[in-house]
């Protein structure tokens, strides 16, 4: 597998042309703020006011490196950064002719070329950008660190096209590794053949069907015994929302109260998808399901979703987080914390899991919908760390997109009228207000 690298991403719509990045770049490299010394340039479109970026893209097959007659440019295999060695450079400037993005440019003051070196892994431009227009993306870890790890879930399972659960299982098991006992209660995850069908199994770790009702209890029993005999085996549950928030809630609540050591991941696709898209307690207000149908009298679900992750936080779990597959780096960071927390208590991760089949949207839209869920504050991303009583958002909840940008992508919301949309928008706001009480408390305490 090819190595992937960190990168500096540019979101033009967030840029206001303040030039802070340019000054920061010049300063960190020369101590002066003259834009002549900046390796990053922001250009403004005088017509539509939009902004463009000129910055080294640290290309995979860098033409500047190939065109250098002096061997002064090379791509660092570990960091992916294209390095310029001043002592080797003969100043022929062929590199400036090689780059299509003005990523390496001639500095008329120093009379040498210059290019971005990513500040050794802590780029000043991204750090100084207060608007998030420049972002240092470290998601390459997903490919480099976890991509090399064994996929403990076999190919050829029978998940629906574009299944988010499959994505989650593969990533999660990669991270958590083979010293794990996996529980997949009845539902989609078990339904795709994770435990096995007629003699064949899909998972390379120990895996079992608990009952829909007793996932947390069975894992608790196994973990207790492994503790007794001194083996550190991770207990991992992939529960659906029904087995977590509905009929399995008692056993989960009991296990959480007792501080049983496990990672419980709720893959919340907001209903009983495996049995044909019926309502669960996490089905959101207004959503169509086969038991909250849309007709001349009924217009989808009439109650709001059970705030499951908050309930788990109130259970005093060692670690509680929400996650989305559109933000995998965030998810991996949370998995790391969950693994650590599960050594001494329960780690609960509630993953927002759009379902192409049950929600009625094309499979290719999966990640986009997962992203819009977060960006509209429908699914705020946060984490709670019991040790220290920390609560914080892991993705900004300020300036959310209107909820319609999320709802309009999904078939199960197609029937919503203005009042229903208004209700959802208000609920999103209320949810954020409530969560902010936790985060503000945290901020007060920290200050």
């Amino acid at each position, binding site marked *: 597998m090819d190595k992937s690298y960190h990168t500096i991403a540019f979101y033009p719509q967030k840029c206001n042309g303040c030039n802070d990045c340019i000054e920061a770049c010049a300063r960190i490299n020369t101590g002066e703020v003259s834009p002549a010394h900046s390796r990053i340039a922001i250009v403004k479109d005088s017509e539509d006011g939009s902004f463009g970026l*000129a910055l080294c893209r640290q290309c995979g097959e860098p033409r500047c490196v*190939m065109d250098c007659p002096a*061997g002064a440019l090379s791509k660092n295999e570990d960091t992916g950064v294209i390095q310029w060695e001043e002592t*080797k450079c*003969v100043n*022929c*400037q062929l590199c*400036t002719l090689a780059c*299509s993005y*003005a990523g390496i440019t001639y500095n008329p003051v120093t009379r040498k070329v210059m290019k971005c070196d990513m500040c050794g892994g802590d780029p000043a431009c991204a750090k100084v950008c207060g608007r998030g227009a420049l972002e240092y993306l470290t998601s390459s870890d997903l490919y480099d660190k976890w991509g090399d790890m064994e996929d403990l879930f076999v190919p050829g399972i029978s998940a629906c096209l574009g299944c988010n659960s499959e994505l989650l299982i593969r990533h999660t098991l990669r991270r958590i590794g083979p010293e794990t006992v996996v529980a997949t209660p009845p539902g989609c995850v078990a339904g795709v053949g994770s435990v096995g069908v007629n003699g064949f199994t899909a998972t390379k770790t120990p895996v079992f069907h608990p009952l829909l009702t007793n996932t947390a209890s069975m894992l608790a029993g196994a973990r207790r015994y492994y503790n007794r005999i001194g083996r550190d085996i991770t207990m991992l549950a992939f529960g659906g929302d029904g087995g977590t928030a509905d009929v399995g809630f008692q056993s989960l609540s009991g296990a959480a109260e007792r501080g049983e050591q496990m990672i419980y991941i709720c893959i919340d696709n907001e209903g009983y998808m495996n049995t044909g898209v019926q309502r669960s307690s996490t089905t959101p207000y207004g959503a169509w399901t086969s038991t909250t149908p849309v007709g001349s009298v009924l217009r989808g679900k009439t109650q709001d979703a059970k705030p499951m992750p908050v309930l788990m936080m109130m259970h005093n779990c060692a670690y509680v987080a929400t996650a989305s597959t559109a933000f995998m780096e965030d998810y991996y960071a949370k998995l790391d914390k969950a693994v650590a927390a599960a050594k001494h208590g329960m780690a609960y991760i509630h993953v927002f899991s759009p379902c192409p089949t049950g929600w009625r949207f094309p499979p290719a839209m999966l990640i986009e919908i997962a992203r819009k869920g977060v960006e509209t504050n429908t699914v705020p991303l946060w984490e709670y760390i019991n040790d220290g009583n920390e609560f914080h958002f892991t993705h900004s909840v300020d300036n959310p997109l209107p909820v319609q940008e999320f709802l309009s992508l999904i078939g199960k919301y197609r029937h919503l009228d203005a009042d229903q949309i208004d209700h959802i928008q208000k609920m999103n706001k209320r949810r954020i207000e409530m969560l902010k009480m936790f985060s503000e408390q945290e901020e007060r305490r920290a200050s």
Partner: protein
Amino acid sequence: MSHTKYLIVGCSHAGLTAMETIRLQDSEGAITMVTREETLPYSPTILPYFIAGQVPQEQIFLRDQAYFDKLNVTLLKGAAVVGADSAAKTIRLASGDEIHYEKLLLATGAGATVPPFPGIENVRYQVVRDLNDALKLRETMNQAKSAIVIGAGLIAMHSAENLAHAGLKVSMVVRRKVSLFAYFDVAAAGLIEKIFEDNGVHIATGSGVAKISPSDGGRCVVTLESGEDLTGDVLLLAAGVRPRIEYLEGSGIETDAGILVDNSMRTSAADIWAAGDVAQAPQFFEPGKTVNATLPNAVTQGRVAGMDMVSDPAFKPYSGSSGLNTFNFFGHHAFSVGLATIAEPTEDIEVNTTLLPSGLRYQKLVFQKDRLVGVSAINAALDPGIMRELIRRQTDLGAIKEKFVSAPLETGRLLMSKLWR
């Protein structure tokens, strides 16, 4: 006889790029590279800088042996090719060894042209084409006080500058009206020549060599057609290059000035490709084929050849040869891309020139209708690579052409920023 899947003859930019391109797709197939050089690969482009002492010898090499070992590539040094048999799929080395190949890339580069100047056989002269030439020149230079450089291209200009930096009094012989005619128009070339003159390099333009004769102390005298006599301790010929194709006689591979290739860098013989200074390839702006002995072109062709040899699904044919280069001299910088030497507008050609001699700054944009076709610049704040890309993509500037003319740097960057994902 040894056997290899890929055989690459020549180990400079075209050969190296082809090899690296092949390895991206085929991590295991045997690759053998042969070079007539006794050393690790280097770029001829580095030699003027080496002569000037700007780069120590141990630093001129493009890749080290460990690099070839890591990529599992066999590098045969000191192995000049003396014959090729396209039917038997073999090449013959000077040592008599033969190598059987499945796919062959010829990237043997170009050697210096030695024009038949009257009396040339009676004097000691230098060329700068390989490391041995450069080492010899350095040795000669050390005892010299003056030099004559014959030629008007970038190698001639680079060499003249570096000889001047080394403290020699340098005279240049340029047969045409101006130097660098391949890249710059008269006005721009005049500006460059002025800078050379200001730095003590005498440039004699518009007059060819009448004869060359030896003088005392190993010196030589170059008599120009104008009657002017130039005397120097060192005589450097930089009058152009000629593809190295002698070894192909009788091979059945079609040649003209260089090895004739199509847009995939394929020669007339099956499973044989050619790239770089040795290849005579289709042109970008007009029909016909040309030898384009520049570094960027060698890399482009090496990449096209490598992708075709390995059947890379991302293969895109060679878009055609056009002029492009950068030129850094006496602290000034210049570049030229595409049809930059057109001086006069025509029906569909528009030329936009900005000349500020006081600031030693020059900028010229050439458009064909709404498309950029050429740019040349001296000391101008432009991104050569962006200009090159806009020309190569034949980007329709349409509505933004005026904006581009008034602010080519910003507009070019904006365009490429938007094109980038």
